[in-house]
């Protein structure tokens, strides 16, 4: 039974991690755009 919860949890951890990576990259891009706008 624990394996069932582990599997479902693992799935969502993977997806959330990836979404987190995407958010991070968005933020970095946003700061780069700000820099470009200043110049």
């Amino acid at each position: 039974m624990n394996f069932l919860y582990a599997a479902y949890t693992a799935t969502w951890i993977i997806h959330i991690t990836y979404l987190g990576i995407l958010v991070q990259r968005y933020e970095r891009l946003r700061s780069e755009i700000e820099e470009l706008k200043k110049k």
Partner: protein
Amino acid sequence: MKRAFPIFALLTAILLSYALYEALVAAPTEQTMGNVQRIFYYHVPSAWTAFLLFTINFVASVWYLIRRSPHADAVAVVTAEVGVVFCTVVLLTGPLWARPVWGIWWTWDVRLTSTLVLWLIYISYLMLRRFSTSGQTPVLAAAMAILGALDVPLVYFSIWIFRTQHPQPVIGGGGSIDPRMWHVLLINWAAFLCFAGLICWSRYRLEILQREVEEAQALETLEPRSSR
């Protein structure tokens, strides 16, 4: 277009929650395996989604080689990345299902092993994209995608031969599926497809934005606005 995104996200969240309920509660308990079998409702849709994404990657790669459309290349990158994410899910849920049911973490099951090789091929594809400093990386990546796609049926066939010579346990069950389980499976697949679509959409916008920024940065280096 932008307004559709939050609506779609909300619908997907609802669908995923409903699918989760169906998988954990509503679906009938399997006779021999018990509740652990419910991993099936996450494992199989993730696999189908990953394969679909990789197929799209193949088509986009070929399209890029023919038309040199930057949008095709962006689609290729996006589907490869998201495909790897879903493939990772498949490779983790598979052993987690196999261990309690068959007592082993891994076996040279045709589908599981083919998925592993597919995962490896696409990770090497992503590494090529990251490490290549050539200006024509999309062309190289597209060639890689084609070779990878050619490899997959060969992988499948080679493991099939291996298994006829060395019989191994079959993970993932063969045989017919209870129609109620099939119903839950399809719901979960629909939910994960929507979720994949959502992620791909976001990733695609990120990719386009990134390319625009890089172009602007390159332009800035060549013609600094302050000097104009």
